[in-house]
């Protein structure tokens, strides 16, 4: 099932995808059907009691590492993001005036489903609740070689669109075998600029869950953004960027100022 969180008529609602529409699932509107363009889309994860942990991978596709002139890392290159950088589907992301290179990053996002500590690779999928699409924007003008990628590049308000759907892990595993078998694509104003495949990840999802859970306990709702493949290009104000992952969703974002 594909889950969404939306705002509609003055309140936030839980919904699922049903025959190309949103079906509200909770009282007082349980059973109500809405068109996709009637609502405001929020990040699809249920709220958590304290700020969720958001881990994000850099250079996790060999071709992208090469594109950025790095050799592939020997262990995951990971940074942490604040929850306030998240924003929903069809949102406006702010491009600061005067920057020269702001690019999208289409990423498969893993949503943890149960408390994970010292998890072994072979059991890792048992701890995944679902998958969604993230667009982990970067503004290269602000890159500095201190705890790189630094927060001014990667932790900006509105710069991590996520959604539209939280897709149950089982659906992906049943149809595709695993999340390591999905094609990724980004379009800018309708033109394909980035194409890749999750099978090209350097550290796959089970490896990442084993690696992180060896020293940090992950909680339901925590996120792992698994990195982006080759093909990132500068985008300007007004550009419509659609980051797509097979079976997971098409996440639309527009740059504004």
């Amino acid at each position: 099932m594909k889950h969404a969180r939306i705002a509609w008529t003055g309140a936030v609602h839980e919904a699922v995808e049903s025959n190309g529409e949103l079906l509200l699932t909770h009282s007082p509107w349980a059973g109500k059907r809405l068109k996709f363009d009637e609502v405001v889309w929020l990040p699809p994860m249920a709220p958590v009691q304290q700020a969720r942990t958001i881990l994000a991978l850099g250079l996790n596709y060999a071709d992208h590492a090469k594109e950025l002139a790095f050799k592939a890392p020997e262990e995951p290159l990971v940074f942490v993001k604040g929850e306030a950088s998240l924003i929903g589907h069809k949102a406006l992301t702010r491009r600061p005036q005067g920057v020269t290179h702001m690019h999208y990053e289409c990423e498969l996002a893993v949503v943890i489903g149960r408390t994970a500590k010292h998890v072994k690779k072979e059991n890792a999928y048992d701890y995944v609740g679902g998958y969604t699409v993230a667009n982990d924007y970067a503004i290269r003008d602000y890159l500095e070689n201190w705890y790189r990628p630094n927060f001014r590049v990667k932790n900006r308000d509105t710069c991590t669109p996520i959604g539209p759907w939280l897709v149950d892990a089982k659906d992906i595993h049943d149809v595709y075998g695993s999340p390591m078998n999905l094609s990724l694509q980004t379009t800018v104003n309708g033109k394909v600029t980035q194409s890749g495949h999750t099978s090209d990840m350097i550290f796959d999802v089970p490896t990442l869950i084993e690696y992180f859970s060896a020293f940090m306990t992950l909680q339901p709702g925590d996120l792992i953004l698994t990195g982006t493949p080759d093909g990132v290009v500068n985008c300007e104000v007004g550009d419509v960027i659609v980051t797509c992952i097979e079976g997971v969703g098409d996440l639309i974002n527009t740059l504004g100022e």
Partner: protein
Amino acid sequence: MQNNLKPYWPIGTVYGALLNFKREWDLRAPQMSEAPHKGAPKAPVLFIKTANTFTASGDSIAIPANVPEVDVGANLAWVFGADARVVACVLVNDVSIPHESYYRPPVKFKCVDGFLGVSAKCKPVAEVQTDALVLTVKVNGHTVQSVSYADTVRASQKLFADISEFMTFQEGDVLLLGSDCLPDGKRPRAKVGDVVEISAPGFESLVNEFVGEAA
């Protein structure tokens, strides 16, 4: 924002500032222009302490089996309320596995389970002179460090302003204002069996014992 009878516990994202004391900055300055940094930092250098790191005062902090000692990072932290306004101050211990390089994000050194000691009590910000506060760090009752917030690279308001240029603090978020190093550039260390106390005038002390990792 919080019930006074209940111990303070962070609910938002906990951010920390690296290299915010002049002593550490000056010690590292000669190498800042070299690879891999190729220049002194311009924006504040930040990190996040994830929720799995939070440890209440009085509880023990486990040191991973393969780690002989950890760094003690005594910090005064700001707690934010609505509209990104600082409302309170709290003492925290930003524990780290010692690491020399500040090139890549320090997740495996700083986001280990239990690695942020958090005092049980906040103090209203109006009662604290942030940029004059002095913290005392004791290990097993012996004073090992005195941290004066008069010695920062960015005073608290300047740090806050420079971070707010690109991100907005949410209600419940926390900002660690920095931890100083000792004259040799290292931080005080703790090993299994040590009791670390961080105190400041008018604040409830933060005390944590360091223990071995459970098998």
